[in-house]
């Protein structure tokens, strides 16, 4: 198929940036979206133009590195997939595809489609852990039984890949789904309960500092999340936060 691509080009963080238009022929439906971008880049290189910079790594939907906003949606029109797993069969011959970086004040653009998501790391530094040192003598793994239901829910929350699609989709650029996934994972496990209060207060504080917006419960994040992280986690975090705020010294 033949496609028209409108791609955001921005030389550096300080450059203003603009959309540029490219046409691409012979795109196969079996290609992944990133393979289509590879073909575009090969074409640009052969024309002695600079290829489009974009983040990617594992190309199997788990590292969370790829991050494009495609036709108005993070990771494009398909559901439950990252851009690297989006396949061109979801598009039609003659389509015009808009490709932009994830947009949020907390995700400044570095170049073209590459954004800086280190805000997510800083939120995790604030409390995304259980304070336990490496030790040859932690208690036996089976000494703490965890109800299967809780373990499964914790796992579901823990499958977040930190790609930032939730922020990119949200009209408020809110990071609540991401933060709540980590808060929930630990809040559901007995190991995490010990520092639950401190964790939620610190992580939310850092989230606000990073300039992400507030949650107005539109639910866009859940729809666009490639890993199907549930809105339940946001409710759980709200609960944890209220509890912690009311009972903190």
């Amino acid at each position, binding site marked *: 198929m033949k496609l028209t691509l409108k791609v955001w080009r921005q030389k550096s963080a300080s450059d203003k940036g603009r959309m540029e238009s490219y046409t691409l022929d012979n795109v*196969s439906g*079996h*290609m*992944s979206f990133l*393979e289509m971008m*590879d073909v575009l*880049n090969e074409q640009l*290189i052969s024309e*002695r*133009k600079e*290829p489009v*910079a974009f983040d*990617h*790594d*594992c*190309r*199997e939907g*788990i*590292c*969370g*590195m790829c991050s494009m906003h495609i036709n108005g949606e993070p990771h494009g029109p*398909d559901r*439950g997939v990252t851009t690297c797993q989006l*396949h061109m069969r979801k598009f039609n011959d003659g389509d015009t595809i808009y490709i932009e970086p994830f947009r949020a004040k907390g995700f400044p653009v*570095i*170049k073209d489609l*590459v954004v800086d*998501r*280190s805000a*997510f*790391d800083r939120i*995790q*530094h604030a409390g*995304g*852990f*259980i*304070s*336990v*040192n*490496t*030790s040859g003598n*932690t*208690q*036996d*793994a*089976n000494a*703490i*039984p*965890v*109800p*299967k239901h809780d*373990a*499964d829910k*914790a*796992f579901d929350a*823990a499958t977040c890949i*930190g790609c930032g699609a939730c922020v990119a989709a949200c009209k408020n650029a809110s990071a609540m789904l991401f933060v709540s996934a980590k808060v929930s994972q*630990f809040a559901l496990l007995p*190991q*995490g309960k010990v520092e639950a209060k401190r964790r939620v207060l610190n992580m939310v504080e850092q989230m606000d500092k990073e300039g992400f917006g507030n949650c107005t419960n539109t639910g866009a994040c859940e729809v666009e999340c490639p890993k199907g992280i549930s809105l339940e986690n946001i409710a759980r975090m709200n609960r944890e936060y209220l509890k912690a705020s009311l009972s903190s010294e």
Partner: protein
Amino acid sequence: MSTLDAKIPEGPIKDKWTHHKNKINVVNPANKRLIDVIVVGTGLAGGSASASLAELGYNVKAFCFQDSPRRAHSIAAQGGINAAKNYQNDGDSVYRLFYDTVKGGDYRAREANVYRLAEVSENIINQCVAQGVPFAREYGGLLDNRSFGGVLVSRTFYAKGQTGQQLLLGAYSAMNRQIGKGKIKMYNRHEMLELVVVDGKARGIIARNLVTGEIERHSAHAVVIASGGYGNVFFLSTNAMRSNVTAAWRIHKKGAYFANPCYTQIHPTCIPRSGDYQSKLTLMSESLRNDGRIWVPKNIEDVKAIRAGQLKPTEIAEENRDYYLVRRYPAFGNLVPRDVASRAAKERCDAGYGVNETGEAVYLDFSSAIKRYGKEKATVMGENNPSDARVSELGEGVVEAKYGNLFQMYEKITDDNPYKTPMKIYPAVHYTMGGIWVDYNLMTTIPGCYATGEANFSDHGANRLGASALMQGLADGYFVLPYTIGDFLSNDIRTGPISSESAEFDEAEKSVKDRIQALMNIKGNKSVDHFHKRLGKVMWDNVGMTRNEQGLKEAIAEIRQIREEFHSSVSIPGEANELNPELEKALRVADFLELGELFACDALHRSESCGGHFREESAEEDGPQKGEAKRDDENFAYVAAWEWTGDPGKANLHKEELTFNDIELKQRSYK
């Protein structure tokens, strides 16, 4: 040629590690504050090492080329992690895990290291659970296990098909805690391009800031390389697109020996290639083989009809299917180790029985598992005489609960529904058992330079068992390196901070800048990927699943040719002082082009078949094992560690003889 000393402690194997820990030097807590350690790579090995070293009190500087340590490729490991917990009461033990690993590695691993690995495996699970890693559990609240990859006990802990992700996020969370405390200084989007050796010791690295292009100096008292494997030398592999050999190759060129580079694992269950644009291959967890049956049509006419789209696999009758693994290996069937399953698939496809357009695919069929599970479920639910449709529905539900995410991934990629039609799979490069040679302390031949995880060579021999890579990465990082590194660093408590203003740093920085400048100046007319793809094709065709002398010699010549062309006609757009993905690729491919040759040379010199390395000249000629791999313990029971001499084709061979006191060497048989 010399013989290498691995510094394996004396004594019975089960006491070696304990005695060693008791005897080696330790650094007192107050002095640890004065010591810096660089860790390159933040996967399971690097992440766990960074966190543990920081917890001990060292100042850690951690580097990754991704935008966050959480994205290291360990995250993609699916199946699980082994540990000799014996929770299932099926007779598992440290010895049995040790035995399985050495045997699975075809007796080319170092016995003492493997025993230690098995020994600390239990602690890993304890540690991960304490960190909040959500492993799968049973209704009673205790941890669940499954059997995995051709072993006879259930010792694999898992978190659905995302075990690597969960373990990595555990290590990442431990790192986050230390980053928050300032004990780890994290350098994201940085790539190590050179090792700095001062007075014979590793004292720092030169790294490129991938955002600004700046060349930076970083000093430390020791350097840990945890940069993963080099499977991307094949261009197409299950590795992440940017996984590379550069960090390992740079230390090799500075004096670290590279061991057994030809030991590559080809994973049998990957999604086949669909076209020339293919950028990577996607692995489907090996756990699928627990329930899926592998087959190709018995009759070549059926194969042709399938390729022409005139016949569907579901229309082929049971008696016209060739379940070739069951046929060839009745004892293990679909659960034979990875290398055996991969070669068997290649054998069928080479014989013309491949079932897709490229002729490189076999079926992995779940229909009988769906039926079996459906009937079981119906019985449990009290439904007598359920209809076939009902059985399928129930069975698909069970299969979905077990493999749902994998099936979904398969469907997204191929547009085929694997509940209704068999999956197509083909082997792909997945893991490299070879790597930097290390001694028992995980130190390379450069004092103060360590290698952990997939980057080193030590624990998997010539073939790695399923669910052992995660175990090794975490064992090295959590429980081995933090102790053994003290033995070296205890001499450095009075050294003081390492200056990055020395002549050695000047020289290393200059060499990196020159290298980059040279590449930028070529201004040729072919993209980096063009060369990488050519290299990959040579590697896959001649240095892949089966190898022979002639093919290897041709490969060596061809790789040299590609390398020359690369350095005269590669085109790198953009500038060196900005974010430049093409330059990043070029630097990596330049190193792959050298490694590829050493890889082929190693394969050529090892004229036996062992593990993932299958030499056509070394096969059983008759008897029940006819055609199977034939190991040559008399001549090749050693580790081949190669020393850089300035030309990858003329590396110096050093041998570490492998002695097996606790295991009897046997020819592997899965018949």
